[in-house]
């Protein structure tokens, strides 16, 4: 059945009317749609994990054993590193306190990720904390981090039961950073999806895996690690490709740090 032209125009007119209504009620529309969508996201998340677990039935035992062995080795190596890390972190906290620089002024607000960055082209993460269900005040512009030390972005909008987080990796966003132990200053440019580009003179020695930190927010936080270095002998510059040290698609919780 095709639409009669008159009906077609009616449908079109109705949509325009709804659009105008939506423009007027835009703030409330977000609250309503997020409230309606939230159960679907949570159920989808639950079933996604179930399906992933079920899919492991079809993985061969040999492959699982090999993977298990490899993971055990990685865990052992990381545990050894962690001992050093904890000692160093304690030293650093003591030093900062001695010099009057406390690491954190306030405890962060933990928020669950409802919709991740791959679901929209705007580098937005939707979380389940808003002005209606917050434990403490936070506002647009507050910093958002993941896994304690990794800087993600800023709060872009606060609705009743949800908030939008704009990632620093939004295309075109520039952020001053320092690279590696020698703290080479540079400007990271967002490329979307948690990725950044940095252009530096070719003579600077940057290695893959070097941490990239952001010193300008009072506390030292990591923006990412150097994932690849593009050096061309005919070019006086080199391009660094940064990536996050974890998979952004698997992100479940973020921490909002009220300023």
């Amino acid at each position, binding site marked *: 059945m*095709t639409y009669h032209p008159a009906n077609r125009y009616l449908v079109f007119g109705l949509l325009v009317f709804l659009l105008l209504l939506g423009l007027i009620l835009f703030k409330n529309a977000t609250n309503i749609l997020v409230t309606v969508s939230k159960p679907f996201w949570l159920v989808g998340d639950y079933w996604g994990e179930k399906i992933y677990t079920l899919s492991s039935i079809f993985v061969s035992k040999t492959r699982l054993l090999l993977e298990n062995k490899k993971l055990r080795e990685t865990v052992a190596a990381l545990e050894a590193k962690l001992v050093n890390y904890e000692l160093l972190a304690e030293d650093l906290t003591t030093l900062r306190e001695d010099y009057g620089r406390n690491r954190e002024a306030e405890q962060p607000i933990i928020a669950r990720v409802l919709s991740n960055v791959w679901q*929209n082209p705007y580098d937005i993460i939707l979380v389940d904390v808003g002005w209606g269900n917050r434990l403490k005040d936070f506002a647009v512009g507050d910093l958002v981090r993941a896994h304690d030390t990794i800087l993600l972005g800023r709060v872009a*909008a606060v609705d009743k039961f949800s908030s939008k987080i704009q990632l620093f990796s939004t295309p075109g966003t520039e952020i001053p950073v320092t690279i590696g132990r020698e703290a080479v200053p540079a400007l990271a440019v967002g490329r979307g999806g948690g990725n950044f580009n940095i252009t530096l003179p070719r003579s600077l020695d940057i290695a893959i895996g070097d941490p990239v930190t952001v010193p300008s927010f009072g506390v030292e936080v990591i923006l990412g690690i150097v994932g690849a270095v593009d050096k061309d002998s005919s070019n006086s510059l080199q391009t660094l490709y940064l990536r996050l040290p974890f998979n952004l698609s698997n992100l479940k919780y973020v921490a909002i740090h009220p300023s």
Partner: protein
Amino acid sequence: MWQSIPARVGYLLFLLGAVLFLPWWLVALLVLILLMVVNHFYEVVAAGFFFDVLYGSPQFLPWRFPLFATIGLLLLVPILEKIKKVLIFYA
């Protein structure tokens, strides 16, 4: 069958579900396919509005306009209808 009202409602519900669960580029591809298959699929604008309200951020969107997908689809539907008239489909 493709153009019946229940089918059209089904496409719209499917698109709304896709906005919630699928990557945005896959949603965009589905929208284009449905716009080619379904005549005068103006209902897709509602899916665009749903997308804008959920994910739109005035701090980033082109020209800081919060309803980019809605208006984009509202313009795209009649343009695609014009293009479809000059295309020949062999089934």
